[in-house]
């Protein structure tokens, strides 16, 4: 298991076409900035709101290199651990995993029309005027 303390300083990675690009977390509305534990809890279903507002996390499909980076370096879990976690959580009746999208474009389109939606993307794909709620260093 990756240490939960590692991700904050490790969003710059090597190994793929997007390897050196920072990941940013965006939200569709006026959601406040969040810290790393809140982000981790949101993507593991342990919280469903941020700052009294409903929050709806979005994911890319398993196998997507951006998702892999996000899980390993932000959430602190491998794809296998994350899938296994949600597999159990779903079948103990604690809800389904975050909605998944095939591409960043598809995710951004849905983000624009879903109140409280939260998504991750490479900084180069950041739409102008987007509400960034978390980025490298968490500050």
């Amino acid at each position, binding site marked *: 298991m990756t240490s939960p303390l590692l991700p904050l300083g490790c969003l710059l990675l090597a190994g793929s076409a997007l390897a050196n690009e920072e990941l940013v977390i965006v939200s569709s509305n006026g959601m406040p900035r969040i810290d790393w534990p809140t982000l981790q809890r949101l993507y593991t279903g342990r*919280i*469903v709101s941020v700052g009294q507002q409903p929050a709806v996390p979005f994911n890319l499909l398993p196998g997507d290199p951006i998702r892999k980076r996000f899980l390993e370096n932000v959430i602190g879990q491998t*794809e*296998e651990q994350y899938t296994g976690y949600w597999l*159990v959580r779903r*079948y*103990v*009746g604690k809800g*389904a995993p975050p909605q998944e999208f095939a591409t960043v474009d598809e995710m951004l389109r849905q983000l624009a029309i879903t109140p*409280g939606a939260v998504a991750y993307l490479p900084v180069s794909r950041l739409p102008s005027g987007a509400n960034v709620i978390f980025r490298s260093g968490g500050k």
Partner: protein
Amino acid sequence: MNRLRMCALLLGALTFFTPAARAIDFDVSGFGTAGFALSDKSYHYQRFIDEDGTFNRDSIFGVQADLKFTSQFGATVQGKLAPSTASDRRWDATLSWAFVSWRPTDEWLVRAGKLRLPFMLNTENADVGATYDFARLPMEVYSIAPTTDVVGLSISKTWLGDKIDWTLEGYTGRTEGHWRYYGREIRDGGNSPGSWFLPITIKSSGLVLTARTIDDVFRIGMHEVEVARVGTKTGTDIIRDPVLGVYRFAPGGVDKLIIPVYNLGASVLLPYNIRVMSEYASIRVNSASEGLSRWGAYVALSRQFGEWTPYIYYARMKSTDAALEHWKRIDGNVLSGMLAVFNPSQKLLADIVMPMDQSTIALGTSWRVRPNSLLKAEWSHVRTGVASGLVDAPKGGNSGEQDLNVYSLSYSFTF
């Protein structure tokens, strides 16, 4: 069944009348296990396993729908097709879950409807083999809960911590079920060996505290279960007639049994990626089936090597000494002369005591074929002590002092 229909209607109504119906997230998933188990004995173990092999013990197929009306309101329905709990000869399609949930804040969760209870660490997901590595959960512990499903209400409060989340869950509910018995000489209502299923009504309430870290789980629970026979009193004791020397039911009976159940469990990830799991449960049943009063425990070690997770566990359960001694006296009550006609009934009464005295050592492995599917193989050796209610004893013999090997191969998947 009426309650199940009510749950289905409730879910249907909620789906239909929710104003923002177009916003409902609807997520359907399926799960299943095709499992084959074979022993080296001609008699049945755990209802189905014998030397001819069976798919009935471990196979199960199900579908689950998770609906999210808003971030606070949702519903879950899970149906399954599995060997019946009311017959050894058929499979039944049943609803495991059909509940609506309300999460007013991140810390509170209220669920109402048909629920799976939080007894052991894997009780809630026991039907979904892809969620654990064991080919079969240790029955010495997992057979102790009188029921795992109720129609009722569950309220839980979670305290989110930096490293540990604490969840306290209280629940109450009712259900109808069956207790299975097996008569090796005669059965209740028949003059041949075989099983019968006693219809019962069950009310269960409990309080369970669970602590979770990202790797570890700890749980402690206390439950009170009320069991009543349908339309009749339940016998409380089997006594020996002082004149004839024949055992029989004591007169009278009670309307319901009050059964306390306690459980304790932990699953901890140690250094070198070694996981240790251990659970303990105890139950006290003051009825003619006093052998059901027992404790059960297991300890398991596993370690993941890539896609492989080999494991070993040792499990043990034991009825109270008084129950085992009572069973011995009844089972050993062989009458002669004209009273010999009562001998089959003495064996029947001994079988009704339901003694539980056995241990299992199991060695197995799972292989993760895909992220959502597991292939599992296991060898287990079961040794019974005085007697075991999990063994359908052969005619003319008993379930005590038996050694059997069980070989299991299964494929569990979700989609």
